């Protein structure tokens, strides 16, 4: 099998793993994670095998036609950008699966959790490998759905359900915007593949729909990557178990939006709108995230807000359009995935071993958990941008991109320095302060985590060091190909740990100094921010609750009005609509029939039958007792049968006689058993609107029928049946031939309907103990057994 075929198989592998996970966990317990981690590990090796080829400027692509008539292909394309993401997703994925094996050890639903995790991994891999628009969209929404499942994993807690629902609504809804944007791009460019779209940048930018497409795509990317003002779902997503937070909500899924922006940079980028909107929203997110992270005391929430801040920085760098910016984004993305994943897992370990995540309740853990402390420090140094870690290289490149003397760069550089200083402080608040100082009593007695837990963060932290020391290899295999793919032209990343004297280094030093100051003043800053937020009062998170509540109330009041449970309302609306549909077009389009010409030579017996039918009808209306009503119903029915007989339809007449007889007999049986009165007791003013609607319906039918019969008759079908019923179907009675032969399947359907009706009637008649059944359905009635199940469901 060639590389393309193997890769398609590789993309399916996590889903197969997801299928096997519950069973494996049942057999092996938490050790199933060791087996399941092989899936991402194999994928990592598979994708790493492409590194040399892609570094030399090649791409790996393949796929097959999915919906050829719509030019939709299920195709993948692996270039430098995709490859970096694939390696991050599979590499960190393997560590996360191991970590989850330790973290949820003994959890009754661990198998389900690992299954969800692998499903997410498959979706995310598909997303970054996708070449076709539709494939990207499908995987995009799949990541939203799997993220929903993972956030809501502890579904017995309302907070988790709310967070899951919120994330799904925001990211899934943003996905719909993305779909609209992709369809617009398809319309503009005529292609459905990113690989072909990349060369059509000028054509797309010249299109009048460019701005609309850009805005739609941006809503999709910003919701997914938690950009201000859509950021609120990300901190709430911390309701998920920590492996999820480390994997989805810092290292991979939230970067999907950034990935999309990077992917579309050659097509949509380098315009005024792009270079205004991205730095604007990215910058807002950067600052807001950094400020909000200082406000938190929960380890995971602190990290979540710094993640938001980092995502803002990535969006800013992608959109700013300065030299070194793309390279900085690449390096920062890689560095962030490594250190933030590690720090989240450290926070999880602390939570797991001490029972609390509140930073004010923690202290002096260094003796009990020395290894975790070391890992935390390494990751925090990288996050703080200190040498000799990869975070340092990333930060140097970021400041290099912002070191320019135009006003925009100066503002952004100031914001970046301040935000980075706050992030520096938060990094050490997470990684340092729980470990130093006096020992504090925690809900659980702290001790070192098992190997499965510290393996993941340890390797990630180590990777941050190795990547920095081997920066030449990193740049050759990862950074340069990725930057080239984003820029749409060859780019070389060459920065190493060797510090170059200059503005970037000075800014780095300033960040560190400000960061240390902020760390020392953290409690004071936190109080100040808390006061500020309390003064603001309202935030998008509360706005979400208000919007959802408003939606529920709106739909409730609408339903109340439209579906009020009164059958007569439904009937009135239905028939009023029928009357409108019948009458309005006739009048509106001037399609009224000509005045009819009544034939003068109707024989007396025909007139008499018609008159009897009319009398029967009115007798039904006015009947004062049951028997009169039944007899009158029979009269109109039999009159119709006679009419059929007189006008050349003996078969109809025969059937109608039988059916009418049956109807009258059954009706008589039922009505004499029940004391039902056929009269209408309602006052005149209530029946008047009914009469008006009924008259309008009747008038509409009459006018329509007159109009139809005044048009010339098209006898094609009639001719056909007359012509062939003897010669083909060998029957003399044309009506019978149509029923049993030409329209035999129709008759079969008719028989089925009669049979189903018969069965339904039978079951209704023989239904025993119906009193109790209805009572069970009554929501007001209190039954012990139903109340019990309702409680259980809650």
């Amino acid at each position, binding site marked *: 099998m060639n590389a393309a075929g193997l890769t398609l198989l590789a993309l399916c592998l996590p889903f197969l793993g997801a299928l096997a996970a519950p069973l494996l966990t049942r057999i092996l317990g938490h050790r199933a994670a060791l087996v399941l981690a092989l899936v991402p590990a194999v994928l990592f090796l598979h994708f790493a095998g492409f590194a040399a080829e892609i570094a030399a400027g090649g791409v790996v692509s393949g796929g097959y036609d999915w919906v050829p008539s719509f030019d939709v292909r299920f195709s993948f394309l692996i270039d430098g950008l995709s490859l970096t993401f694939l390696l991050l997703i599979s590499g960190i994925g393997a560590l996360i699966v191991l970590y989850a094996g330790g973290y949820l050890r003994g959890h009754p639903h661990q198998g389900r959790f690992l299954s969800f995790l692998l499903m997410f991994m498959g979706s995310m891999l598909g997303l970054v490998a996708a070449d076709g628009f539709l494939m990207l969209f499908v995987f995009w929404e799949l990541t939203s759905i799997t993220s929903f499942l993972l956030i809501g994993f502890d579904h017995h807690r309302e907070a988790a359900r709310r967070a899951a629902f919120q994330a799904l609504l925001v990211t899934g809804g943003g996905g719909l915007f993305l779909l609209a944007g992709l369809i617009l791009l398809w319309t503009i460019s005529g292609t459905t593949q990113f690989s072909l779209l990349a060369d059509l940048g000028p054509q797309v930018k010249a299109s009048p729909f460019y701005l609309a497409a850009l805005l739609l795509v941006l809503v999709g990317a910003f919701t997914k990557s938690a950009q201000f003002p859509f950021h609120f779902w990300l901190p709430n997503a911390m309701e998920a178990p920590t492996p999820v937070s480390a994997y989805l909500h810092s290292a991979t899924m939230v970067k999907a939006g950034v990935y999309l922006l990077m992917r579309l940079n050659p097509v949509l980028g380098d315009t005024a709108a792009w270079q205004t909107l991205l730095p604007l929203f990215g910058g807002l997110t950067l600052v807001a995230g950094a400020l909000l992270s200082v406000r938190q005391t929960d380890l995971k929430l602190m990290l979540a807000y710094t993640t938001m801040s980092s995502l803002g920085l990535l969006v800013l760098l992608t959109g700013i359009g300065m030299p070194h910016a793309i390279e900085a984004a690449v390096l920062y993305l890689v560095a962030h995935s490594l250190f933030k994943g590690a720090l989240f897992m450290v926070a999880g370990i602390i939570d797991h071993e001490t029972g609390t995540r509140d930073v004010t309740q923690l202290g002096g853990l260094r003796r009990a958990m020395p290894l975790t402390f070391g890992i935390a420090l390494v990751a925090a140094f990288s996050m703080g941008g200190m040498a000799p870690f990869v975070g340092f290289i990333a930060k140097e490149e970021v400041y290099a991109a912002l070191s320019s003397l135009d006003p925009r760069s100066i503002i952004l550089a100031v914001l970046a320095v301040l935000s980075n200083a706050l992030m520096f402080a938060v990094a050490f608040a997470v990684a340092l302060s729980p470990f130093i100082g006096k020992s504090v009593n925690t809900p659980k007695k702290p001790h070192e985590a098992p190997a499965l837990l510290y393996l993941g963060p340890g390797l990630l932290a180590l990777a941050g060091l190795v990547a920095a020391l081997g920066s030449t290899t990193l740049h050759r295999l990862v950074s340069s190909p990725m930057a080239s793919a984003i820029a749409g032209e060859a780019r070389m990343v060459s920065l190493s740990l060797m510090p170059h004297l200059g503005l970037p280094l000075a800014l780095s030093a300033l960040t560190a100094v400000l960061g240390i100051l902020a760390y020392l003043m953290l409690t004071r800053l936190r109080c100040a921010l808390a006061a500020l937020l309390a003064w603001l009062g309202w935030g998008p998170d509360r706005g979400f609750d208000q919007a959802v509540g408003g939606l529920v109330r709106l739909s409730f009041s609408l339903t109340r009005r439209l579906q009020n449970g*009164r059958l007569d309302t439904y009937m009135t609306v239905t028939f009023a609509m029928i009357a409108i549909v019948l009458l309005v077009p006739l009048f509106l389009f001037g399609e009224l029939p000509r005045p009819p*010409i009544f034939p003068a030579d109707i024989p007396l017996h025909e007139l008499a039958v018609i008159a009897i039918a009319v009398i029967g009808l009115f007798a039904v*209306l006015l009947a004062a007792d049951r028997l009169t009503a039944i007899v009158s119903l029979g009269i109109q029915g039999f009159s119709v049968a006679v009419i059929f007989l007189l006008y050349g339809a003996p078969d109809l007449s025969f059937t109608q006689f039988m059916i009418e007889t049956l109807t009258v007999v059954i009706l008589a049986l039922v009505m004499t058993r029940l004391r039902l009165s056929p009269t209408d007791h309602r006052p005149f003013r209530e029946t008047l609107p009914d009469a008006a609607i009924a008259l309008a*319906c009747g008038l509409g039918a009459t006018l329509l029928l007159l109009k139809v019969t005044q048009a010339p008759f098209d006898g094609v079908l009639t001719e056909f049946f007359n012509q062939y019923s003897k010669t083909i179907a060998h029957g003399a*009675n044309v*009506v019978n031939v149509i029923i049993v032969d030409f329209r035999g399947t129709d008759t079969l359907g008719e028989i089925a309907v009669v049979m189903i009706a018969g069965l339904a009637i039978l079951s209704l008649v023989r239904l025993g103990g119906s009193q109790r059944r209805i009572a069970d359905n009554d929501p007001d009635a209190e039954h012990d057994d139903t109340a019990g199940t309702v409680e259980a469901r809650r």
Partner: protein
Amino acid sequence: MEPVFALLTGLFLTVSVYLMLSKSIIRMLLGVAILGNAVNLLLFTNGRILREVPPVIAAGLDVPAGPTANPLPQALILTAIVISFSFFAFLLVLAWRAYGTLGADNTDRMRVAEPEDGGPPPSGY
């Protein structure tokens, strides 16, 4: 003859709709029974009216000798009669059961599925 039938169809439909708009289930049932006839007449008239010549091919011939009544609407109506009867019978038994269990023949008092005082939905997540 068609104008007469058009008027007759309209009248059937009027009476049937009026009965169905009532709140008493037995009147609604009567309306449903009449509705079947109204629709059949509508189909019948649409195929044009011709007196007394049923669409039967005489022995020894391959096609009808002269103009006959239109067979197509007749075939449709034949199906419709049977189906509307099964429908009517089902409704009748349903009404009978409903009366037996709820003790009501007025739709205002049949509120098991959609109770009058259903409160607002829960506001949580």
